[in-house]
């Protein structure tokens, strides 16, 4: 340690290790001053520092990363909702194993049915247009009514890239969803709003393994 040559070698090592942070100016004042003083008297380390500045510029150069997509956000939300659903299912399974809780739950369910069935019956009679809206959760006011909008449910394993690939031939744009059932509302921009074109598009989508459900928003032939 007292050998000046050995000490000098250790100092080279120490400075070399700190050079990247000297270059980006994040060293604390004591370390910075130590490196600066060493570089002033060591041409070899000073050359390494110059290379380090070039390397910084090379690595930090812009790469042109893409921005976030609505599809990516939708996928993340779908994953979270799926997660919530699973948690809820687990909780209800656990609760069901407790006899008194099971009785209370059953009683609540019977009472809820007693109220909900007549209400649903009355609502059904009052709004016959909605009888086709399976998986509905979003408000119909969002739809353009052009006849090229569909509900789409994909397999949970489908990646955003795969979904994009599925929708691309139809210039499909996600306009809502996914809802708690994992259903998206998609506008097929490349499809003329006529029954034949829409039916063909739906059949093409249904042939894909990744597609669990593809249905027109409005009954076909009635935009």
């Amino acid at each position, binding site marked *: 340690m007292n050998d000046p040559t050995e000490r000098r070698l250790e100092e080279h090592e120490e400075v070399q*290790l700190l050079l990247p942070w000297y270059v980006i100016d*994040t060293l604390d004042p004591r370390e910075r001053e130590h490196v600066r003083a060493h570089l002033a008297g060591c041409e070899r380390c000073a050359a*390494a520092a110059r290379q380090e500045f070039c390397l910084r510029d090379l*690595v930090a150069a812009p*790469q042109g990363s893409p921005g976030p997509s609505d599809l990516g956000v939708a996928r993340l939300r779908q*994953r979270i909702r799926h997660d919530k659903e699973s948690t809820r299912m687990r909780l209800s399974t656990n609760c069901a194993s407790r006899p008194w809780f099971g009785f209370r739950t059953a009683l609540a369910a019977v009472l809820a049915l007693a109220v909900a069935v007549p209400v649903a019956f009355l609502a059904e009679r009052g709004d016959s247009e909605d009888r086709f809206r399976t998986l509905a959760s979003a408000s119909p006011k969002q739809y353009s009514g052009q006849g090229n909008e569909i509900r789409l449910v994909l397999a949970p394993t489908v990646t955003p890239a795969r979904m994009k690939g599925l929708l691309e031939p139809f210039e499909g744009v996600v306009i809502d969803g996914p809802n708690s059932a994992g259903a998206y509302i998609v506008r097929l921009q490349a499809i003329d709003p006529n029954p034949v074109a829409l039916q063909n598009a739906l059949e093409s989508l249904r042939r894909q393994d990744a597609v669990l459900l593809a249905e027109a928003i409005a009954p076909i032939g009635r935009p």
Partner: protein
Amino acid sequence: MTAGADTGLQADDAADWALIRRIGDGDEGALEVLYRRYYSNLYRFVLRVMRRPECCEEVINDVLYIVWQKAADTEPLSRASTWILGIAHKRALKAIERHTRDSIAVNDSEALDLATTEDMTDQVSTRSLAEKAFALLSPEQRAVMELVYYHGLHYQDIALALQCPENTVKTRMFHARKRLRILWPALTGEVPGAASGTEIADTQEMDA
């Protein structure tokens, strides 16, 4: 770094932690804001580490999903960006494990060919050079280099993010630099090996 820039960073960090607290309370809207705010940086970082553009979206989704899961139990012990980049690092390494190997890695001779190409001044060439340079490094080295030079993180912050000793961070950078010696002529016009640095034994792990 100026005092003004430092204050701006602190304000951004406070805003990010406020979002993370809201996410911890189950606010999906806050998660979307964080997703949009971090997407480009995460994309760049994940791409640098993995070098597979087709995997970036999936890994970013994983990262934000973990943020969602952990937000309620996470204390702001570091900058929010450091915490999120640490998660991204882990997820990217796991994704690399899932895929076979770095199939687009190039060998040293390809990098040497590029390094001796004369026209290195335009932006496209610089980008290509950076790509080739990163192909010479391990995923861990690429991560550290990106965290230092693009994100400007101190070695203590990187050690925190990657959950490794500070000396490991320093030696990863050192060995990465040694691997890139082959590119110095293109970068600096200097003779190769003129300033390659002293030999330093990596006591933590050998990345080179």
